[in-house]
């Protein structure tokens, strides 16, 4: 027993904790999303199952799990079922370097930020496989859109993140958090507001959240890449989407909003509170803006986000060099 390194045990515990966290958050976010949608449309949202519909997500989960897993005729069965797994498993890994608190970090690594950026790309592969494997034209179209969109939005996202990395001289998320203070004016978002906005918009595009939810646009593509998925096949994509949302919001909090630092008392609760505020804003955006057209989506990216992000990066590099 003594040969097992402590670091490995810690990592395992962290992974289990993360899996639980992701599952729980999935339930909470499903509930929140439906409630917020309800209130914005001035109806109660889920209300019948449990007090104020609190048990509704559980009922949904049971329903999803209970459904038959169905492989369409002539589909590539292997790729078809590999896709949801590829989509979901890396999402767990993405949480490992995120500093939830002074000690609550899955694993300290110098290249934490790089790991997140690298592994988040796997989601695109998953969507691509899902669309391709389903033997469905809508699926293929959704996959093609997913690839075009993710590739495009990854670039300004990277550039925005890079600006922070330049500024702090580190890719270690914990270190970046340490460099910021508790009060809002000590956050990186104050120094780099443009980078923050670019990051947030690209993050919406990366996670396929409305108004950038073109890969699954139900009005044009029925359900895009997951048209053919039933039961937990769809459920895993769903969970992965929520997990990815939490990841991008967590990274945003760590990079731009002071992480677990907060006024008066530092701690994980600040981190979670900030993450949830960002998530709520994401949900709010979803129920406010109509879906963009595909050319608009790409135009926003290539004509606005990219040049602005580049400009921001150049200025950051210049200023860092001078000071």
């Amino acid at each position, binding site marked *: 027993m003594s040969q097992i390194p402590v670091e490995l045990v810690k990592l395992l515990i962290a992974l289990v904790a993360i899996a639980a966290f992701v599952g729980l958050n999935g339930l909470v976010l499903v509930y929140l999303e439906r409630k*917020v949608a*309800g*209130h*914005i*449309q*001035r*109806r*109660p949202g889920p*209300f019948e199952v449990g007090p104020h519909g609190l048990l509704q997500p559980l009922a949904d989960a049971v329903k999803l799990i209970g459904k038959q897993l169905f492989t369409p005729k002539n589909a590539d069965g292997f790729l078809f079922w590999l896709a949801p797994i590829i989509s979901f498993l890396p999402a767990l890994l993405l949480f490992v370097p995120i500093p939830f608190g002074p000690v609550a970090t899955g694993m300290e690594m110098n290249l934490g930020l790089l790991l997140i950026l690298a592994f988040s790309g796997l989601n695109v592969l998953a969507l691509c496989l899902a669309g391709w494997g389903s033997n469905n034209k809508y699926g293929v179209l959704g996959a093609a859109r997913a690839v075009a969109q993710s590739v495009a939005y990854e670039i300004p996202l990277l550039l925005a993140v890079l600006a922070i990395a330049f500024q702090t001289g580190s890719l270690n998320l914990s270190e970046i958090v340490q460099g910021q203070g508790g009060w809002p004016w000590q956050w990186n978002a104050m120094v780099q507001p443009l980078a923050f906005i670019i990051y947030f918009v690209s993050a919406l595009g990366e996670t396929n959240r409305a108004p950038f939810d073109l890969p699954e646009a139900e009005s044009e593509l029925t359900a895009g890449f997951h048209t053919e998925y039933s039961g937990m096949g769809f459920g895993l994509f769903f969970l992965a989407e929520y997990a990815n949302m939490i990841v991008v919001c967590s990274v945003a909090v760590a990079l731009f909003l002071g992480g677990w630092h907060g006024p008066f008392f530092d701690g994980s609760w600040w981190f979670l509170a900030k993450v949830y505020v960002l998530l709520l804003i994401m949900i*709010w*955006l979803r*129920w*406010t*803006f109509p879906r963009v057209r595909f050319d608009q989506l790409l135009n926003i990216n290539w004509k*606005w986000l990219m040049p602005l992000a580049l400009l921001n990066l150049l200025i950051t590099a210049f200023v860092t060099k001078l000071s």
Partner: protein
Amino acid sequence: MTAIKKIWENVSGLWSLIVGLRITGKNFMDKQITLHYPRETVSKSQLEGFRGPLELVGKPKDPGSPKCIACMMCVSACPSNCLTVVKAKAPVLTEEELQAMKDAEARGEKVTKPKAPKEPIKFIYDFTLCSLCGSCVENCAVNSLRYSSNVYLASTDRNDFKMDLLARLATQAQAKTPPTEPENSTRED
């Protein structure tokens, strides 16, 4: 110049996004406008402007019979043929009455034959076809049609939606239910 204009257009477009967020944000804070249906009932004010299946308006003095003059304007206005109106026939005269009229005519008196009364004897409305477009309501010369505010309409039999509006009006008058809406409240929108 046009490039600057284009850029400005885009930037000012950003403002519209914020306006949108403000609107949904305000709605989020507002009271909800739907009901928990089986537990709550719909109040009168919530039914304002609601378009339920058509009903006839009774005469002010005789609420059991409709204002309708059987002009058939509604029937010809309806794009979906929902309405069937049958005009009342002229009363059939008996032999003696006919004879009496002939005699009177022979004496040089002025005789008026009894005319058909201006009222329908049948007013059937098929709600399954109706799109609640309102053409009939708008075209009625005497404002004899209006929307009811029946929100609890449900049935498993389509025949239940073929409504005899005359019978409905009669029972309404009998039950002395106050009219569900003020008389001239056919909504204009």
